[in-house]
Every structure is written in structure tokens, then in C-alpha cells.
């Protein structure tokens, strides 16, 4: 473990040096970020290797996509994305609350700068709006997390636990754009440049969920099961708000913004599942890993599918269209057509929801998957054009390959998550 930590620190050092030297030689930042990600991947232990590979791939594609924009901080932006990817790789392997929260901040803060990137200047107006919401979200999340951690030492947490839980979930919701706290999402997604938004909508969504899952599992107690209804209702509201918003929107970026709101609602259902499976046996809190790994695998696959899709679609918006079959593949992955990645994500989440008896949420998730079909098909149809050998199409091709990985049924991923879930339960 110490070697892994040393490798991570080394990767951070390389990133920092790359960003410094990129002021003189811009490509330095790019290569330094790639080297840092390779080191980060090498530091991933076997149980989270598949996860690491996915983050590595998404990180590299995000880095490459930055070449489509001429930003004024060229070089540093590579460093920021590299930092986000490293923190995302790291969070799954840590069992330290402080490091989990540090990873959350390391992923959140770079987006404050990235969101302002645009060609020939800085998009300050969007930046202010985004930062205001994000700071508020991060503060809510951190306070919620600390309260929850504190309740672990109390014999009777009671109301304090509920307060911590609600603050944490609200902070998470604001951070990732779960309705009704999604106010910033459509405005920022439509006003900012598509490339930084593709990063915010992809890589930046993963860590907050893992952090929330980790904290909620770590602090779970007998009250958890009764309070998950709060998260379930939020998830349901988000699915409907997102899908109805996307159905009634015309601007592509706005459709994708609402699609994010809906997708975050789907992923939030994992938060519903995980604490419910904490049971008290002979006075001890026992985690049932057979349920957690399903929820964890489902949530992560859905986040990866969301990341791949958002990168592809936002790059297509930037490039004024991309190859039509690629657009359709991404749309089908979002819809949840098997054997694409989106399908497996939803399937595992559904399985875990049925396990814990949230049948009504299963029904809502299924209905929402169906009502999302028209806008994804419309998006694919409107953004789809003929083949051209350009950066946009290569990026789209790369993300389609990611969604196609699950053509090999992802038992391999499920087994990895099983080992990981067991590790979490052992730690607790």
C-alpha cells in the first residue's frame, strides 16, 4: 500500500511539473498527464484494476478532447484533468475518510477553472454561477460527512444522524445535478464550451458518488433503512424532471443537461440500496456484500456509460456533428439497450433494488428508461453526419468502444466489485 501511495505522489509531482513546464512548452502538460495516469493505473491494486482501466480510458479521452479547444491556459488544463482522473482512481482504494473527502475536493475544484475555459478568453459569468453552486454543494457534503462520521462514536445518533444523512445527500445532489437541486445544470451546460462540459459531465460525476457511498456504508446504523426513502424520492424526482426536461428541450446541450439530471437520478438509486443492506446481527452492524457489489457495479457501469455518452455527444456538438452510427450507439447505451454498457448498469441496479424491496423505484426506473428513448434518438439523428477522419469522430469512436466492452458479459467487473465490497465490509 505504501508503494501505491508513493506512486500516486510521484504521479502528482509529474503532473505539477508538467503544468509548470507547459507555460513554456504546451504539449508538456499533455504528456505529463498521460505519464501520471499510467503511474496511477499501475498503483491500482488487482481488485480495482478494471475500475482503474475505465478511469484511465475516460481520463485519456478527456485529455485528448482538450485539443479541440484553444484555451488560454493550455497545458494547465491537462494538469487539471489529470489531477481529477488520479483522484478518481485513488478514491476507490482508500479506506481513510480524510482521503475520501480530499479526493472529492481534488475532483471538484479543477472543474471551477475548467468550466470557464473558452476560445479567446474566460467565461467568467458561467464560472461564477457554477462555482457558487459547487462551493455550496461541497460545503454541505463535507459537513454532512463529518456529522455522519461523528455519529459513529455516539451510542444513540438519532436526529444528528438524520441531519448528517440529509446534508450529505443534498450536497451530493447539488454537486452532480440531481433534481430538484439541478438549477445550475441546464444553464451551465448550455452557456459553457462543450469540451470542458464534457469533462464535468463525465469524469467529475464519479467521485462524489463513490465518496457518498463510502461514507454512508461506513456510518450506517439501524436508522439508515428508514431514511433511505428520502433518497429514493429524490432519485424518482430527478429521473422524471430530467427526462421530461430533455423531452421538451430543443437545444442539444440543454437536452444533454437534462439527460444528466435523469442519469444522476438513476445512479442515486444505488445510494438507496447500499445502506438498506446493512443489517444488525447479534448487536453488530453487518454489511451484506452480495447486495452491495450489485449496486456498486451497476452504479459504476452507469457512470462510465454516462461519461462515455456525454464525452461523445458534447464533442459532436463541438465538432458540429459526428459519424451517425457512433451517435446511435451512444444513444442506445443511454437508453439501456443490451449488450451496451448502459444496459448492464441499469440491470445491476434493478437487481439490487429488487433485492431490497424497492419495487416501486424499479418500476419508475423502467418507465423512465422508456420515456427517454425519443430524445436520445432525436439527438443521435440530429448530431449524426457522414464519416470524416477528424478528432471528433476518433473521440466518439473511442467512447463507443468503451460502451461496447460489455459485449463480453461483465461478470469480470461484477466479480471485481464483489471483492471490493468484501474489502469495504471488512474495513467496517
Amino acid at each position, binding site marked *: 500500500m505504501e508503494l501505491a501511495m508513493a506512486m500516486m505522489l510521484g504521479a502528482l509531482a509529474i503532473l505539477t511539473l508538467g503544468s509548470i513546464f507547459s507555460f513554456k512548452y504546451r504539449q508538456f502538460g499533455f504528456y505529463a498527464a498521460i505519464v501520471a495516469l499510467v503511474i496511477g493505473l499501475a498503483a491500482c491494486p488487482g481488485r480495482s484494476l478494471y475500475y482503474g482501466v475505465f478511469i484511465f480510458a475516460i481520463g485519456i479521452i478527456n485529455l485528448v478532447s482538450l485539443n479541440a479547444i484553444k484555451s488560454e491556459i493550455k497545458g494547465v488544463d491537462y494538469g487539471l484533468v489529470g489531477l481529477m482522473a488520479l483522484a478518481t482512481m485513488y478514491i476507490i482504494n482508500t479506506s481513510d475518510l480524510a482521503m475520501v473527502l480530499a479526493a472529492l475536493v481534488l475532483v471538484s475544484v479543477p472543474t471551477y477553472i475548467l468550466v470557464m475555459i473558452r476560445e479567446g478568453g474566460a467565461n467568467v459569468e458561467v464560472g461564477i454561477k457554477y462555482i457558487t453552486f459547487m462551493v455550496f454543494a461541497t460545503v454541505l457534503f463535507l459537513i454532512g460527512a463529518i456529522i455522519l462520521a461523528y455519529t459513529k462514536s455516539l451510542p444513540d445518533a438519532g436526529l444528528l444522524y438524520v441531519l448528517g444523512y440529509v446534508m450529505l445527500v443534498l450536497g451530493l445532489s447539488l454537486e452532480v445535478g440531481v433534481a430538484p437541486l439541478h438549477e445550475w445544470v441546464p444553464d451551465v451546460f448550455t452557456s459553457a464550451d462543450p469540451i470542458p462540459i464534457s469533462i464535468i459531465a463525465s469524469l467529475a460525476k464519479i467521485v462524489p458518488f463513490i465518496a457518498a457511498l463510502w461514507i454512508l456504508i461506513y456510518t450506517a446504523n439501524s436508522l439508515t433503512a428508514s431514511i433511505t426513502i428520502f433518497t429514493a424520492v429524490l432519485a424518482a424526482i430527478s429521473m422524471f424532471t430530467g427526462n421530461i426536461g430533455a423531452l421538451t428541450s430543443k437545444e442539444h446541450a440543454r437536452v444533454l443537461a437534462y439527460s444528466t439530471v435523469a442519469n444522476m437520478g438513476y445512479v442515486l438509486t444505488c445510494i438507496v440500496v447500499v445502506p438498506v443492506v446493512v443489517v444488525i446481527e447479534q448487536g453488530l452492524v453487518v454489511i451484506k456484500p452480495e447486495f452491495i457489489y450489485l449496486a456498486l457495479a451497476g452504479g459504476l457501469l452507469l457512470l462510465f456509460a454516462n461519461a462515455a455518452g456525454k464525452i461523445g455527444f458534447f464533442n459532436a456538438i463541438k465538432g458540429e456533428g459526428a459519424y451517425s452510427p457512433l451517435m*446511435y450507439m451512444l444513444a*442506445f447505451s443511454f*437508453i*439501456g*439497450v*443490451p*449488450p451496451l454498457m448502459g*444496459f448492464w448498469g441499469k*440491470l445491476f441496479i*434493478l*437487481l439490487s433494488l*429488487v*433485492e431490497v424491496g424497492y419495487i416501486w423505484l*424499479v*418500476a419508475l426506473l*423502467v418507465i423512465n*428508461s*422508456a*420515456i427517454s*428513448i*425519443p430524445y436520445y*434518438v432525436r439527438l443521435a*439523428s440530429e448530431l449524426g453526419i457522414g464519416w470524416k477522419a477528424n478528432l471528433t469522430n476518433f473521440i466518439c469512436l473511442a467512447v463507443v468502444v468503451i460502451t461496447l466492452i460489455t459485449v463480453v*458479459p461483465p*461478470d469480470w467487473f*461484477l*466479480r471485481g466489485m*464483489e471483492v471490493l465490497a468484501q474489502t469495504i465490509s471488512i474495513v467496517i
Partner: protein
Amino acid sequence: MIMLYFLLLPLIAVFIAPLLTPKRATYLSSAAFIIPFFSILYCIFKGNGCPSEIHIMNFSAPIGEIYLNFDFISHAFGLTICAVSAMVALFALPYMKHRFEEMKRNVKSEFRKYIFLYDLYAVSMLWLVYSGNLILLYIFLELTLITAFLLIYSYGYGNRKWVGLLYLIWCAVAGVLTLAGFIIIALDPLNNTLALKGITTVGMLAWAFIFVGMLIELPVLGPHVWLPWAHAEAPTPVSALLSPLTVGLAGYVLLRIALIDYSFITTYRMPILAYAIFSSIYAGFSVFTQTDFKRLLAYSTVSQMGYILVALCLGPFGLIGLVIQYMSHAFGKSILFSSAGGIIAVHHGLRDINKMGGLHDSIPTISNAAVVGFLNLGGILTIGMLGEFFILRGVVDTFGVNTMSLAIILPVIFMFMLSVWYGFYTIRKVFYGKPKDTKRLEISRYFYVPLFIIGILSVLLLFPPLSTALIPGLKAVIWTFMGVGGVMP
């Protein structure tokens, strides 16, 4: 293992055919289905000599083992899918060229996209019926949906994009409901798997989800709203797969679930039966009110799918009837949709049956093929006859011979007669009567030879040795699942 390679052939063709010229791609696609057709036929004759399953991989619980299932039920469906897909592929060569020209698109490049989607569509159906795990089955069910949607969306008629979406949304809802049912099966502690051979029970909730989902997919009266649009506005080769093969696969899914646990059907037999008969008769009468030939055939499909649902309720004999009904409807309807396509291609988009009449004089070959198609639907001198026999046998077997059973037998017989009635009505209205144009037209052989091959097969399946090889095999499988003892009749 050899069967696996035969099933892989059409899958390989999916990726090779788009690289070839339209003619070669068509021959390759057709051959890729004809070869497995003969291998299935071989297995049907050989009986227990062929492997009953091929293991693919083990998935964590609750998904379980993923394997291919090679029993007689799968073979019967597989044989039909191969035969129809191979022949419709040939029919589609001149038809789709004509369609691309009509749409003012580049024939060569569009054909590449079309043949890829067509092959993927057909192969998904083929693999679906051999899937030994419900999740694998669901994957192929969704693949058929997506490929058919793309074909309608890209090459359909009228408001094709709207129709495509209508089809996609309805069938996606059907699919996810079915998936919800599968998930409930998987999480039942008595099962903890989705492998067909490992599932021991299907709870009422799971059954309800699957049943409603598949009612939409079949479809029967009520959720049928998407079908006349989709089948009428799809490019005709797609209609010739969609109506004969795809919708009936809902019957296949219901059959597989019923073979595991028949309790849902036993509990709700009478309401389902009444609904199915009413649906079939209502849709049968609706045929008379249609003026668009393809739409007319679509309503006939709704009526014929009522047969499938009726058969599902009628115990082991009914289930044999279900399989044979699927085959006969597939043969008949593929011929009829292809005939409609032939008329569209030869008579410049003609679909209005009020403007038809006497077409036998101008296109006698297509007219003759259509007659064979309607004979299949009516159950006259084709395999459809066996289907109707087993359905009636199922009624008698389930309800006995008494006044009560007459209340079922008479509507069922009327249901059968209605198909014959609207069949001859359509033949007279479209192909006979006063001809609008007596000039005999030269038409491509692709427009009728494949149709006659399907027609001949449908007749051959009525007689030994094909029927005597197929039906005992079907009985053996269904009898085993249903736990019926004694000597097989």
C-alpha cells in the same frame, strides 16, 4: 459444437456482407441462413443424436450459466427463422434497390447499411430462440427491436421517423416489463439464476410483468396500436420479418415461461382465453375495413397472434399448436408481405386495395404465391392445418367434450373460419375480379421464386417425413416440461 459454428455463420455474414456488392451480399446473407437451416433439419431428423445444449460461460448469481439450448422447440422456431430470413433476403435485392432509387439515395452505399442491419436483425432472432439464459434472450430481443427500428427509421414509408419511434417506444416498454419479470425470477431464492434449466418457479408477479410485456409485443387487441403503423410503413422486407417472425417471438417467450411454471395460465385461463378469442375475432373483422394492403396484413397479424395466445392456454397440446401456429403464420405472412412488396415495386407504390383488382392478370406468379400465403393463414393444406388441429385438440383435452367445451370450441372454430374468410375476400379483391390493367408485366424472379420456396416448405411440413420428425420431438420436450406421463400420443 458443430451447431454453434452453424449459428455463427449468419453472425459472421453480418460483418462480411456489407463489404460486398449488393448481389453478392444478398447471396451470402441468404446462404448464411440456408446452411443453418439444413443443419437444424438434420438435428430434427437425428433427434436425440444432436447435443441438447452448448455451454458458453458462467455468470455470477443471479444471472447464472449462459448457454445455448438446442431442443425441438428452439429448432422449430430456428428452422422457420432461417427459412424466412434466407428467402426474404433474396426478395429484398430488387426491392431495396428500387426503394433506394425511390428515396434518391446511393444504392451501393445504402445497401451496405441495409444488409448489415437486416442480417443483424435476422441473426438476433435466431440466437434469441437458442438462448438458454433469460438475460441472453433479453439481449437478443432488444437487438431485434433496435435493428428493426433503424430499418423502419431509415427506409420506411410515410412518416417513417414517427412510426419508427412509435414502434421503438412500445416495444421498449414491452421489453423492460419483461426484464422486470426476469429480474424477479432471478431473485427468487428458489431460482437464484436466469438459466432456463435452473429456474424452478415463476411467481405470479414475475409472470404478470412478462405476460403484460409480451402482450404488447405480440400484440393483442389494445396494445396493438403500434403494429399496423409499423408493419405498414416499414420497408417491405422488414415487414416480411417483423410480422411473421418478430412478433411471434413474444409467443416463444411466453411458451418458455409456461413450460417452467404453468400456474399463471391455469389460474387465469378463462379470462385470457376469452380475451384472446375476442382479440382475434375483432382484428379479423378489422381486416375487412382496411384499404391499405400492408395495413390489412398487419391486422391479420393481430388476429393470428390471438391464435398464439389461445394456444398458450390449452395445455400441452395447445403448446404444440403454439409452435406450429408460429411456423405457419411466419411462412404465410412472409409470403403475403413479400407479395405486397412485389405489387408496390411493380405497380409503382400501389397499396390501396380499392385501386387493385384483377392483378392476377398482370402478375400471376405473385398472385399464386399470395394464395399459398393465405392457405397458410387459413390452415388449408399447409402446416397451418396441424396448428389448428393441435389447438382444437388442446380445447378438447383441457375442457373435455361437453356443453361447456362447446362454448370454447365454437368461437375457436369461428376464429379459424374468419381467417379463411378474410383470406379469400382479400384474394378476390386484390388479385381477381375486374382487372384494372390486363397487361402482363415482366418481373424479377427474386419477387416470386423465394415466395414459392417458402410455400413449398409450408406444404412439405404437413406431410411425413418432416411432420413425423418434428411433432414427436416437440411432444417429447413439452411432455417432459409439463410432467405429462404415459405413452406419447
